[in-house]
Each structure stands twice: as structure tokens, then as C-alpha cells.
């Protein structure tokens, strides 16, 4: 188990182990560090490049390295490596289908003290629509460690989205992550499809509502675009579906679930729960829980919403 280790360190430790055996594994950082990367920088210095605060160059450099056969990771704070570089990702990585893994740290509001420049709550919407590219939104450190190794062997572009917060492990070492969705709690008529840190909240809420609604299932959707067959199989028999994400509602996980259900003729009531900005971004502080409460994403808020939806 990877209790006590951050998603970031679990991920980079795993990449380090691959890179020791394969000198084609290269890390490009945009002035970003981590204790686990210090070792990489020291022991595998010929496979580590820091471009400075130049995220576009990080992506372009990574793409060029990949064109020459390298397996490349480009690392920065999540909104910078995605939103700032979006066209480089679209044309260099996605259009040319090159095996570059973007690594973004700071999913959702996990840079809780840093304001909207560092919040990352729109990236799923824009990253999930790119051809060839898969987004992997990390749920815990076991998954992050697994994705470090998986990414070293990928032949396509990839975006690994890491949370800064230390979250308990929901998975066991050796779990097979190839399906992109996992049923973490079996259900019957109602299911919550959640992603990232909100998977933990979904499990808590399902438990808190268990007396009134004993059969709420919880599905972890960690890879986007969502794999249709496993998702539809997991939702078989669903009479109501709830989606839950620490991300803006337009284009996010909820939208992705609705698209698949609509395309497959599944007509069940759906309630999307996520971030809805009123006039501007979040300039509020006081910790992540305080921010989540402001957007109706505290455990109690979510339980109320789901309770009245299922009621």
C-alpha cells in the first residue's frame, strides 16, 4: 500500500524505476520539482531536462524527443501544462499521435491557497476531446504509481492528472486499470459516477445515505474519454444516475456520461454535481473544504442533493 505517499511521489518513483532500466525514458520539467524528482535529477541527469518556466517549450521539446523515439514526460502545474499549451498539445501530440505523457499536478482546487491561476477545473473538458489522447485522473497513490509504469509503455499521448492532497488508498497494488472505470461499491437502482478526489466523497456520501438508500453504487471514472462498454455495463439496471466532480460542469465528467447514455438510448434521470461558477472564478480561501462548501460540494451538500434527487 502507498499510504502516506503523495500521488506525485508515487508516480515519479515508478517512472524512476522504469527510467533506470530504459534510457529512452526522459523527463522534461518546467521549473517543477518533487522530492521524488530530486533523485531522478541526481542519478539520471542525462534523462532529465528543465526548460524553465516555458511550458510551450516543454511540450514542443517533449514532442521532438518523442519523434526521435524517446518516451517522454512533460511536467508542470496542471493548468499550465494543459490550458496554456493547448494548441501545442492539439497539433504536436494529438494530431501526430506521439507518446508524450503530460503530468499535471494540482487537480481541481488542490492548490487551495493559490486562487484561480492555479485551480484546475476546466482541463477535463478540453483535454478529453483530443484525438488519440487519454486523460487519467488519479484517485489515489496506488493508481498514480501504476500509471507511472503504464505511461512508460504507452504508444499514444497521455495526460496524468495528479491531486496534491494526500488521499487514502482505495485500490490495492496490482489492480488492473485497463478498463478506465471501476465499480468500487456495487449498487442496484442508483449510481454515482465520480472522478478524482470526489470518488472518496462519493463513497462517504453513499455510506451516509445507506439507511435511506442502501443500494447506491459508486463508480470511479478515471480515464477519459470514457470507455463506453465498461461504463454501460457498470450502469446496467440504473434507474437514476448522479455524476460528481470537482470540475466545472460544462464539458466535464457529467457531460461525458450524458453523451454516452444519450448515444446509447439510455434514458434515465441524471443529476450532475460539480462546480458552477456564477460570475467569475474562485477568489476565496480558507482551505479546500471551505472552497468546496462554497460550490455546494461539501459532504453534507452532496448528500442533500442526492437525497432529494433519489427521494
Amino acid at each position, binding site marked *: 500500500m502507498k499510504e502516506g505517499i503523495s500521488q506525485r511521489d508515487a508516480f515519479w518513483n515508478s517512472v524512476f524505476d522504469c527510467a533506470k532500466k530504459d534510457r529512452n525514458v526522459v523527463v522534461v520539467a518546467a521549473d517543477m520539482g518533487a522530492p521524488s524528482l530530486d533523485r531522478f535529477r541526481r542519478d539520471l541527469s542525462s534523462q532529465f531536462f528543465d526548460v524553465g518556466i516555458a511550458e510551450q517549450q516543454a511540450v514542443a521539446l517533449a514532442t*521532438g524527443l518523442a519523434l526521435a523515439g524517446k518516451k517522454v514526460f512533460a511536467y508542470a502545474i496542471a493548468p499550465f501544462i494543459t490550458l496554456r499549451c493547448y494548441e*501545442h498539445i492539439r497539433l504536436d501530440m494529438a494530431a501526430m499521435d506521439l507518446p508524450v505523457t503530460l503530468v499535471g499536478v494540482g487537480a481541481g482546487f488542490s492548490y487551495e491557497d493559490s486562487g484561480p491561476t492555479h485551480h484546475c477545473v476546466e482541463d477535463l473538458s478540453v483535454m478529453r476531446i483530443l484525438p488519440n489522447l487519454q486523460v487519467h485522473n488519479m484517485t489515489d497513490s496506488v493508481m498514480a504509481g501504476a500509471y507511472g509504469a503504464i505511461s512508460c509503455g504507452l504508444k499514444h499521448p497521455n495526460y496524468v492528472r495528479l491531486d496534491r492532497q494526500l488521499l487514502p488508498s482505495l485500490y490495492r497494488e496490482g489492480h488492473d486499470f485497463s478498463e478506465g472505470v471501476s465499480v468500487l461499491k456495487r449498487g442496484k437502482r442508483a449510481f454515482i459516477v465520480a472522478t478524482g478526489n470526489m470518488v472518496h466523497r462519493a463513497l462517504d456520501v453513499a455510506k451516509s445515505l445507506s439507511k435511506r438508500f442502501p443500494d447506491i453504487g459508486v463508480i470511479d471514472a478515471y480515464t477519459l474519454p470514457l470507455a463506453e462498454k465498461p461504463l454501460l455495463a457498470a450502469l446496467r439496471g440504473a434507474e437514476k444516475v448522479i455524476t460528481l466532480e470537482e470540475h466545472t460542469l460544462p464539458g466535464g465528467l457529467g457531460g461525458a456520461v450524458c453523451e454516452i447514455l444519450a448515444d446509447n438510448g439510455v434514458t434515465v434521470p441524471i443529476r450532475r454535481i460539480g462546480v458552477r461558477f456564477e460570475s467569475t472564478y474562485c477568489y476565496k480561501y480558507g482551505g479546500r473544504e471551505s472552497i468546496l462548501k462554497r460550490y455546494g460540494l461539501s459532504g453534507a451538500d452532496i448528500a442533500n442533493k442526492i437525497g432529494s434527487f433519489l427521494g
Partner: protein
Amino acid sequence: MQTKIERLEKKAQHIRELLLKMCCRAGTGHVTSAFSCTEIMVALYYGGLLRFDPKNPEWAGRDRFILSKGQASVLLYPILADLGFYPVKELDKFNSADGMFGVHLQHDVPGVEITSGSLGHGIGLATGLALAFKMDREWPMVYALLGDAECYEGSVWEAAMFASHHRLSNLVAIIDRNHMGATNFTEHMVELEPLADKWRAFGWDVVSVNGHSFEQLLGALDGLRSRKVAKPRLVIADTVKGKGIPFMCYDPLWHACVPKGEKQKMALDAVLKGEEA
């Protein structure tokens, strides 16, 4: 007997003819942007500078030519056809439903390395290729051709800084300095000058040449494989946008335009006669 320079000049004329006919047939293409860098690309592909194999476009030991100004794909496509990467008759299908390519550059055409059309991407990619070859102690050279107005993109300078810091002496960038963007002269938009000094300040080994002179282009681009200077090389090639068709030169309105009707005949006559701008 023809000298090397005469042979290259004749080839440049032939390629201009192929591309002009191709664009006129399709009614589209960036003719003037391609004509400004015709000598540059002919020097690279026919002047013994680039190593490549048309029978094996994916040959790992090939030099990499990164056409960052993707709007000049209408020049690269006829060159690759002429060299045998694919049949010349493919040019007849330019921008058609059953054709292989359109106005901007795409990576799946044999002999083409990248998709390009949005500017400011190519030189960053080129730094990655050059770095990978240095890491592996392999000998391919990486050549990137940029437009001068492309240098307004900040990503170009991010890449420029990286390349000199890592002493990427296997990287050669060429700027097609035709003094125009899409709608205006560069110095009327935002001054690019002193362009050579800017690149020197970024740590590059800069040479300025007449971009329509094969003697000068070969002088600046030849012998770079074995040079001792541990810096990337930049060649600023001073050119005329639309070179070879006098009435299309010095007029920004011809950007991305193809001559039609009587103008089309005048343009082709100018190319066949080898008229000066």
C-alpha cells in the same frame, strides 16, 4: 557543362513552375510565401545538404527537415514529388477529395516530418529532435525553416533559449526574411530588427545571406556537420516574398492568393522566363 549553381537555378525554376501550376489548378495555396524560400529549400534538397532516401522515407539516419512555416508546404510537396517520394501526378490532386494533401503541412505525407500551419511550433520540436540525437550520439542534422513573422511567436524564443543552453550544434534554423506577415510589412507591424542581434543575444551562431543566392546559401549551410562551434546555427536569408513573379512582390495583398485569369498567364510566363523581382 552546367555548374552546380546553374543546375540548382534551373531546378528552382522547375519547382516554381510545378508549384504555381499546382496552386492555379486548385485555386488556392500560399504562392508568395513559397516563392520567397524556393532557393532555400532547393539548396537543402538538391544542393547535397540534406541526407534522405525517397525509397525509404522513414530511414532512421535521415536528416530531419522541419518546415515550421507550414504555409510553404506547396513548395515542399512538389520537391518531394520531384525527388520520387510519391508520383508527380499526386500534385494534380492538390486540395481535392482524393488527394493526399491540402494547403498546410501534414505529417503523414511521405518525406514530411510534422504537421504544421500554426506558427511557432517547429523550432521547439526541432530542439527535441536535436537533443535526442545528441543524447544518443547519432549524426543526423536537424534543419528548421521559419518565417520571419513567425518570430513574433513567444514559443520561438523559448526554444531559442533552450537550444543555445544545450549547445545544440546539430540544429540549424533558417529564417525566410521576406519582411512580410500575412497583411503587412513586419517593420510596420512590430519591428523585428535588429533580428540578427536578437538571435546572437540568445546564443546562436548567426549568419545573414541573400536568400536567393545559391552561392551564399550553400556557403552558410554547408560543412555544418563537422564544425567545432558548440552553438546552434541560424541563417537569416534575406528574401523577397513572391520572388520570380514581379507583380506579386512587395504587395501584402498577395498573401495566400493565387493569380487568376490573365494574371495567371503573366505569372507563369514570368516564372518560365526567370524574371527578376
